[in-house]
């Protein structure tokens, strides 16, 4: 949201907007390979740049905390453009006259955002939140390509387990299907809960 807000009406907006979309267009498999190289303990650029700041090398794929953080960072990197795109479009479609009227009444830029734009964007924010929750719950490709669920069980996701049961263990499709149905139920339940908590029906006037 901050990116969408900062980018609006700035010099080079079109270029930045296009550049920001690149991560979303990169296939997850390619992104996984690239990030694995970036996270390389000895030769990876991430540790190199951290070392310039005096930070010792981090085992991004060999420790519980950092492997989880590593997977989260890749997911955030890949899907921030989607969140940005939705919110940016939302921001562009807000009625300008209301915002301009607030300026006439003496509101600052921040006040206009806090009291006018943000409340107007809230429904979109909730929708994006729900989509990202669903996405995060079924994360598979990044785990498969980068950590394979490890080290230990640090980054083992439910979808990854379904894949292993369904494919790697010898095509146990029945059990894998049952697990998938459970995932569907869990996601449905969580989304219903979110809709209720966020009062999305009222907000979206459904």
């Amino acid at each position, binding site marked *: 949201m901050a990116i969408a807000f900062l980018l609006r009406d700035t010099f080079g907006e079109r270029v930045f907007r296009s550049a920001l979309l690149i991560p979303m267009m990169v296939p997850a498999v390619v992104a996984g390979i690239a990030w694995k190289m970036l996270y390389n303990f000895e030769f990876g650029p991430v540790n190199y740049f951290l070392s310039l700041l005096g930070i010792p090398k981090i085992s991004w794929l060999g420790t519980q905390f950092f492997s989880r953080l590593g997977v989260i960072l890749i997911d955030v990197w890949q899907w921030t453009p989607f969140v940005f795109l939705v919110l940016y479009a939302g921001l562009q479609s807000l009625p300008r006259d209301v915002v301009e009227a607030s300026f006439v009444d003496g509101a600052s830029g921040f006040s206009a955002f806090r009291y006018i734009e943000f409340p107007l964007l809230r429904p979109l924010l909730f929708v994006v939140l729900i989509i990202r929750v669903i996405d995060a719950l079924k994360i598979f490709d990044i785990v498969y390509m980068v950590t394979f669920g490890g080290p230990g069980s640090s980054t083992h996701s439910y979808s990854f387990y379904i894949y*292993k049961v369904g494919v790697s263990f010898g095509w146990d499709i029945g059990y894998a299907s049952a697990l998938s149905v459970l995932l569907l139920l869990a996601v449905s339940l969580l989304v219903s809960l979110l809709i209720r908590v966020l009062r999305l029906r009222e907000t979206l006037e459904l």
Partner: protein
Amino acid sequence: MRKGIVTGLAVVLVFLFVSVACAVNLVVWSSPDNADALHELAQNFMAKNPDVQIEVTPLSWEVLYPRILQDLTSGAGSFDVTTWDLMTAGAIAPGMLDLEAFAKEHPELVDPNFDDEDFIPTAKYVYGYWKDKRIGYPFYGAAMFFFYRKDLFSDPALQAKFKAEYGRDLAVPKTWEEAKEVAKFFTKKFNPDSPTEYGIALMFPRTHTLFYMYLNFFGPYRRSPEGIAKFGKVDLDWGDYFTADGLPAFNSEEGVRALQDMIDLMQYAPDPLGSDYGETLEAFGKGMVAMVPQWTACLASWKESPLLQPFEEKVGVAVMPGGTPVSGGWGLGINAASKNKEVAFRFIQYATSKEGDKIQWLKYRIGPTRKSVVEDPEVLADSPWLKEAYIASLDGASHRPRIPEEPRLEDILVGTLSEILLGQQPNSIETLNLVADEWKKILGR
């Protein structure tokens, strides 16, 4: 004039159509490490058999095995020939063509120079049979080897320093206890004068890599006279993880000690839990470590590494410490649902022939499976270490299970091993007993 061109084109089109219709298209699935060698062998075969078109498709290990299983289960016949990993033998056997039965039915297709007795006996079984069924011919013979920096081990200054510190000569380690000392000596953190940053490169990720790496450490205990007395002889189908009675053997004092050896060595390695094949290959290739357990396929890459030149003076190959390296390798077999069995049979005979075996070693470092190739003067001139280290490694190799339940067992054990190495679970018999219980449940024992 126009009539002539049209007629000419028609003739060419008819010729092309007839050629395509008459050609036999053989679909070969391969793991990436075998693909280049298979591609050249396919080219050679096509040159001798112009009516045959062979398409070699490389598929990663994680993709290849499930796809083979899917195809064999459904009987779709999407591939004619495939390389198969030795530990998948039990799972794929029902859908693979029985080559012995097929050869008996088609004696005219059997190459008189094939020389089945020339295969190294262990290789012939583990890359060829499941129970009594011949499901493939040995293609890629492999056991892990211990690669080391020959120039560092023969450096007089380093030798003197090592002797002063440890009271013995600096030599390639023969046991994991020795390996710990040598690895410590070559780690800058413990020896600031070390020419390498780390002593050893280890790959303990949460993938099938950990499943075979553990055997390099457990094997010496399992194969020792005490281990044989306690667990019984090793069955080639059940492998070293099991007792002679088919019960888990790793949930024992020996299993815990093997894990402790791995834990002890981890401090001398760059990011062992986050490293896999590529990372360790790179660490050795860039001169960061003095030793690394690896497969022979790495040699092709290291031979090109500027830091390892002159190669023969800088890189040495030895048998794994403990003397029981884990076996790997691939067989080459035919899909029972293939519509081109005759041509496929001729092709796999050529690919696994003496000629093919020699080409794949000399050009692609795909380990030989034939005794005659290991003893071939040209091969020995190229790789003098081969005869001694290779046969010793293959003969003394420890084996993973080849039973159909292997992938499930592997996943359960790898998860726990990874957690123990990470410190999430204690390294104890009790922890390993939990895995053993799950194994027994899966196996119905």
